[in-house]
């Protein structure tokens, strides 16, 4: 029998599959359809220090083999989140990763400190948010800003921190090295790639926000390449994501070097996708005589 468990920055997961932030709420909404406790970990929707209203609608649009979103990080704020969403997750037998967003370093720090004495297992820091103080370019698009926020968060965090990289950069390995050097415990990638869709009949943008983040199978080859580049560049573990929809996709990311994988947009196409992927990896390992994921992780590196 294959052992699907992994150890990532000291945290044991029963299997390498989590769900991508923003595509699974905090699991509550999927609870009636799937057994959330089957997941290796649940990564929650991004949460900020205070409630955010997000962007105007339309917030999503479909594109070939994928979608675009500009939700604008709507969230109920950390207080409600701790009381309601974490309470739900404590009742599940799965690791809890809280995704954190903010408009300034102090926003992030506030959330991280509020989570210090909770039973959250890991923190994922979404640095694709615009750094309002620095003219709005995302923290994750500038290696110095990324290193700085990584350091600040790491100094306060009681849990291992996962820095979630933006793919909208010239060199993803440069960003990965910046985060690793600044103390990140884990890297996750990729966040969405900025895209645009125009409704030619209405002569306007498909999304009210004009641009949105592209996700889904259409970005998978780009995500695999970036995960591979990052795994070659750093020593800390990597959570790979971007277009994973089948167990074969998950294995592809693991072979590129990822320790764990995250299922995002595929949840929208099939709420059972993450469970099917876990089952698929197990069957694959059994049929190929693979007893531990260590045997295939990064085989192509």
């Amino acid at each position: 029998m294959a052992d699907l468990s992994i150890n990532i920055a000291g945290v044991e997961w029963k299997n390498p599959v989590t769900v991508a932030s923003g595509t699974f709420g905090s699991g509550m909404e999927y609870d009636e359809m799937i057994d959330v406790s089957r997941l290796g970990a649940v990564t929650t929707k991004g949460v900020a220090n205070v409630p955010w209203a997000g962007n105007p609608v339309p917030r999503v649009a479909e594109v070939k083999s994928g979608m675009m979103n500009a939700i604008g990080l709507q969230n109920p704020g950390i207080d409600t989140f701790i009381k309601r969403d974490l309470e739900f997750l404590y009742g599940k037998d799965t690791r809890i990763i809280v995704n954190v967003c903010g408009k300034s370093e102090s926003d992030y720090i506030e959330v991280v400190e509020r989570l210090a004495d909770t039973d959250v297992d890991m923190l994922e820091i979404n640095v694709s948010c615009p750094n309002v103080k620095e003219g709005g370019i995302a923290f994750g698009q500038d290696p110095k800003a990324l290193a700085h926020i990584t350091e600040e968060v790491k100094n306060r965090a009681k849990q291992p921190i996962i820095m979630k990289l933006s793919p909208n950069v010239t060199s993803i390995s440069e960003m990965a090295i910046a985060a690793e050097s600044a103390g990140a415990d884990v890297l996750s990638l990729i966040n969405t790639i900025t895209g645009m869709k125009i409704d030619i009949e209405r002569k306007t943008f498909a999304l009210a926000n004009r641009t949105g983040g592209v996700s889904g199978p259409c970005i998978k080859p780009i995500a695999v390449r970036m995960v591979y580049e990052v795994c070659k560049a750093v020593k800390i573990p990597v959570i790979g994501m971007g277009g994973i929809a089948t167990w074969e996709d998950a294995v592809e990311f693991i072979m590129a070097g990822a320790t764990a994988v995250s299922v995002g947009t595929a949840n929208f196409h099939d709420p059972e996708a993450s469970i099917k992927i876990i089952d698929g990896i197990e069957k694959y390992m059994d049929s190929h005589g693979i007893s531990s994921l260590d045997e295939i992780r990064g085989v192509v590196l």
Partner: protein
Amino acid sequence: MAKVIRECKVVSTDKLASDVFSLLLDAKDIVSTAVPGQFVSVYSNSADRMLPRPISICDTDKSAGTLRLVYRVVGAGTKEFSELKQGDTVRVLGPIGNGYTLEGNSAILFGGGIGIPPMVKLAKALHENGMSRENLHVVLGFRDESFLLDEFSDIATVHISSDMGTIGMKGNAVQLAEAENLVADVIYACGPKPMLRAVKNFAEARDIKAYLSLEERMACGVGACLACVCESKDVDDHSKVHNKRVCVDGPVFTADEVVL
């Protein structure tokens, strides 16, 4: 009212107007708990279309276990559904959303365009609840061609309008209700946003409670992604901001809780 995902067999298909189609699905587990005003998410069989299409429950036959969907072909997804043949299968998630609250002794049902289908199951439910034909007003606004009329004629008083005047009064459903001076205990509406705004005004002017079914672009269809929000008058208890999710907090809202 648990949502379930099922691979549903196509029992039959029908063309109701030049671009309006009816799909009868074998969907026992979905219809068993469905109430009027709820919808389902229909997934494409084409690998390049990832997002489900939300389609209102038009009607259900609980004993036969069948679900009826009526939809207009507007893009690639609905085009694909229109090409389904008997025996094909399609993946469906549902039932989703809150549905209409049945109340009052008389009602006006406003259906605009492709907002008409959910009025079928609603009218039938009100009828089964004992609402008389005279008290059950169904006001329909078509673009040009009519469809589903027969579903209402035995149980409700039907009023018809169309944009071009090709059938019924020339104008929209709310103008027709005004012209006919309709009143009732409660109003139910589904249709395009301009129509819903007019229904809201119509209801407020007459101090009638109104339930409006909203539409918005969706991704998850289960309340998780926050794609499908509408503006709420008050801070919403779930979101902690002035946003409600159309998919699970709606699609039906009272006219006074949302900003249109």
